[in-house]
Structure formats: C-alpha cells, structure tokens
C-alpha cells in the first residue's frame, strides 16, 4: 500500500531534492515527508502584529504520528494551519516532500492542499457545508485532485466511506450533513481528507467535540488508515491522554514554542521540562496506584500571545526557575529527545 502511495505521488515528487535541513535522529534514514524549521507565525491585529508561534521545528516521517500537545492559546492550532500555509508565516520554513511552501504560488498551494496535505478539524458538526449532500462534497473533492469521471469518483467516494466505517455508503451519498451524528460527520471528514491519498494528514483536535467512546473509535480509525496508506499524521490536541496510545512522538508546546519533544514512551516515563512534568502530573493515571490526595495542578495561566516575559515563557509558573531563566534557553538535543530548559542545558 505504501508503494501504491509513492507511485501516485511520483509526478509531484519528480522535482523534489533531498531536504537540505538536517533530519532529526528520529527520522534519520528515511527522508521526512514534512519538515518544519524555526516556524514563526504572527497575526496582524488592530494592536499590531501578535506572534502566535515563535519557533517550532519538527520532522515527520511517512506513516508516523506526531502529536503536538499544548493548552489553549499555545499556538498549536496555528501550527496546524501553517502546515497548509493557511496562517501568516513570517519566518522559518515548512517543507512538504522537499518543497518549501514559501516558494509556491497561490495556485500551486491550492493544488497541494487536499492532494499532498489534508486537514480535519475540531468541529465535525460545522465542517461540512449544510446545503450540499455528502456525495456532492466528497465527489467534488475527489475530482478536484484526480482525473476521474463522475462515476469513477462516485465509486471512490463509496470506497472511502466504507474504509472509514460508514454503513450503506451508497445511500449516505444522497444525505445532507444534518442527517448524520457528530462521529459520523468526522468519519466523512476523514474520508474526504484521505480521498486523494495525501502524504500528510493534519488533525486539529479531531475528537475534542465527540463523546469519549466515539473519541476512541475515531482515534483508532485514524491509526488504522495511517498504517494502511502510510500517511504521516500530525495530531494536535490539548489532551495528553488522547495521544498516549496513537502517537509515535510528542511535541509539547507552550506560548508559541516547542519546549520538549520525545518519543511517546520516553515522555511519559521521564518528562524533562517542568511544564511537561506538571502537565503529566495533572492527568489522573489508572495504571499507577492512587497517590491519595488531590491531583496536582499547574498554578497560574499561560501568557497571552505576544505578552510572554523575556526569557523562558514558563518562568513565572515554574517551581524551579533560576536567574538564568530570564534569558531564553536554547533547544538542547539529547539522543532522540530535545528540550528547551536551562535545567537540561549541557
């Protein structure tokens, strides 16, 4: 299946040269399908530019799931949009299959979206156009990127609906979004996003709006499809528990920065950044004996975008803050992990 994928992409990949950016150890060997280097995103507002992302670097290999975890306002959704060049990137670079998004025209970007990189959103209830049938939206998306006639595209649409576990797909095509539940709609969104076999799927809190049982179904569906198609998945979430099972690696974001990155098991076993430690301590664990006493909570609130103190943005909430923390710590790499904290600067 992975070979199939490669064959379909061969034309698009023709011009792709090996990425000049050095791959991180985690993806060494295989060329990463997506590389982000020192990404900076800033929104223009009436009060001047507000930086939402101030330095994110990551690599994603084909078939890998990379989770970005962070609180509301940490910039994780902005990273998601920036991966599709849908947010105002002011610095750094995003390379998809070796191509720098900054060097592409609007037309080229449009051809990239949906075909090379696709996205699913937090709100399945409102992510589909209410006045068009599912079939129309699905078939149109397929024909947008693939040279299929209507009948063939319809066949492909039915096949995709089957793959995402929707019963009686031929009949569903004639239905409108309001006739489906939230979980079903998210399945349709996933079918639509994967219908053109993109290299990368960005999932921005895909299960936040869903019931817990449906959450688990959607996550395992995403994982199955990732394995089947060899799609690289960037999973954005505020719920670190959601990613424990499906993510290969986790990046933790705080105030627009990636402050720690590690393989999932390592992160849970030995979080390095004080913020990550606090985050993990605030999640109830069923696999550990109860500690007795209330769950630990992180005190204070994250800084508003653009209002972070100089130096480490976590400093005001950190129990281990030192004098040196008033200057920005560098991102230090240690084996497969990296962390942005003076405690680990060796």
């Amino acid at each position, binding site marked *: 299946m992975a070979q199939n994928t490669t064959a379909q992409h061969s034309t698009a990949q023709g011009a792709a040269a090996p990425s000049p950016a050095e791959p991180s150890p985690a993806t060494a060997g295989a060329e990463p399908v997506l590389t982000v280097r020192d990404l900076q995103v800033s929104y223009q507002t009436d009060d001047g530019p507000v930086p939402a992302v101030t330095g994110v670097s990551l690599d994603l290999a084909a078939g890998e799931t990379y989770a970005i975890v962070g609180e509301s306002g940490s910039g994780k959704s902005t990273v998601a949009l920036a991966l*599709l060049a*849908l947010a105002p990137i002011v610095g750094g670079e995003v390379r998809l299959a070796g191509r720098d998004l900054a060097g592409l025209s609007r037309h080229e970007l*449009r*051809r*990239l*979206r*949906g*075909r090379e990189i*696709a*996205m699913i*959103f937090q*709100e399945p209830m*409102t*992510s*589909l*156009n*209410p*006045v*068009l*049938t599912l079939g129309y939206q699905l078939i*149109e*998306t397929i024909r*947008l*990127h693939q040279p299929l006639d209507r009948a063939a595209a319809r066949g492909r649409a039915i096949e995709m609906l089957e793959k995402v576990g929707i019963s009686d797909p031929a009949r569903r095509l004639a239905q*409108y979004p*309001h006739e489906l539940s939230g979980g079903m709609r998210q399945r349709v*969104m996933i079918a*639509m*996003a994967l219908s053109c076999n993109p290299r990368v799927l960005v999932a921005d809190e895909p299960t936040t709006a869903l019931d817990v049982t449906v959450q688990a179904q959607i996550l395992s569906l995403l994982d199955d499809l990732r394995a089947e198609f060899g799609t690289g998945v960037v999973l954005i979430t505020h719920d670190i528990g959601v990613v424990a099972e499906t993510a290969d690696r986790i990046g933790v974001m705080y105030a627009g920065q990636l402050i720690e990155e590690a393989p999932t098991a390592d992160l849970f076993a030995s979080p390095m950044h004080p913020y990550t430690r606090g985050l993990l301590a605030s999640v109830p664990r069923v696999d550990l004996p109860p500690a007795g006493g209330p769950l630990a909570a992180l005190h204070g609130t994250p800084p508003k975008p653009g209002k972070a103190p100089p130096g480490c943005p976590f400093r005001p909430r950190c129990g281990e803050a030192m004098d040196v923390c008033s200057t920005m710590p560098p991102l230090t790499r240690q084996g497969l992990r990296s962390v942005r904290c003076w405690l680990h600067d060796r």
Partner: protein
Amino acid sequence: MRPSPELRTLLRRLRRSRLAMVGMVLVGFVIAFSLLLPLLLPFDPNQMNVRNALQPPSSVHLLGTDHFGRDLLARLAYGGIISLQVGFAVTILSVLIGVGLGALSGFAGGATDTVIMRFMDALMAFPGLLLAIALVAVFGGTMGAIVLALTIVGIPRFARVVRATVLQRKEADYVVAATALGKRPWKILLQDILPNCSGPIIVQATLKFPGAILGEAGLSFLGLGLPPPAPSWGRMLQESRAFMEVAPAAAILSGLAIFITVLGFNLLGDGIRDILDPRAKHARG
C-alpha cells in the same frame, strides 16, 4: 438538487405563523385578482366612454367607472399587473446586482471592498424617492426606466446585507475546511458561502418587493410613472382625487389596492424574517 433542508424548514415554520399566513392570503388574492380578472372581464381598461363617466357600481361595471367612463375593476386589475411586474423586476434585479456587488466586496476585501462600499454609501446618502424621481426624470417615463430607477435605489441595501453575511460565512468551519482541501476560491464563494447567505437575502427581497410597488405608485402619483392612459394605481389615485366628492369609489379603491398589496407582502416578509433572524423575538415557535 432537492429543495434544501433550510427551505423546507422555512415553509413549515411559515405555516405556523398567523400573520405570515394572513400576508400569504392577501398576496395570493392580489396575484389572482391581477392575473385572472383581465382574462374574465370584457373591458379594455383604456377604452374611454365619456357619456358613461363616473357611474356608480352596476351590473355591467361592477365597481363603476372613472371620469373617462373606463371600467374601474378592469383598470384596477391591469394596474395590479403593472405593480407586480415592477415588484418582480425590481426585486430580481436588485437581488442579482446587489448580491453580486456585496459578495464581491465581502469576499475580495481590500481596495475592491472599499471602492464598492463607498459607492453604495454615496447612493444611500440620497433619499430613495428623490433619487428615483431624478433618475426617471433623466431616463423618461417608461417601464424600463422606472424599474431601473427603483433598482438603483434598492441595490445598496442588498449589497450591504450580503457583504456583512459573506464576511461572517467566510470564517465558517466548512469554508476553512474547503480551503484546506484545495477548493478554488470562486467555487467556495458560489457553493459554500452564498447558499448559506440565503436567509438574509430572502428577508431583504421580501421587503424590497412591497417597497418597489410603493415606489412605483409614488412615482406615478407624482406624474413621473408610466404615461397615461396606463392604469397604474398611483396615477389612478392622483387623477381621481379631483372627483372624490362626487365619486369616491375610484380614489378609495386604488388606495385600497396599494394598501392591501403592500400590507400583504410586508406581513409575509415580516413572517419570514421572524423565522430566519435568530435575534428576533419568538424566532422559533
């Protein structure tokens, strides 16, 4: 495509609203009156017979005759056709042009937006009827000129409503999702944004319709409408004023025709707005 689910919900809610139903009955009556009577009546509305002038209702002339001896019922019915023609033509043209300009303005933004909207502001700065009078004075008293004048007066309101709604819908999740799937911008505008702006457009259109009828009646009352002998309600009202003390039927009936038509469409429009506008009270009964 089947009628959209929104439209079916709208019709169902409309049947539950009493005022809207009254409006619907009045509108239905006016349309039937204007379209069917000319087929049934044996009179030419412009056939004069001075010896027969100002007759009271009789078995021949059911509502009597005017000061030229023309059958009043026939003139009212033919006047209805003129009113409905103006109403439909002005509404359709205002919708098409206003929606086009408003959608372009809201979707493109930037300089396009500024130029279009400042032009609309300038148009709106004139009192509607005065602008229409000026335009008809320039273009002359033909049906086309009247429709054109009332359309120009009507466009800015549509453009503003549509621009505001487009700006809102542009941020909708399904629009971002469509963009993320690589859909072309003009297709997003036509398929994802505009169909979901239909509510405010429908409301504005149902209010534009009686407005246009009233505008035409106003113009012809002032002597700027269709030239005589065209049986426009406004002109009939104006001409019959001179004979009100001898034969009040003509003045009363032409005024009543305008009143019933405008009231009917207004009630219907209000009913639709109550249903479509979530801010209105008792929106969802």
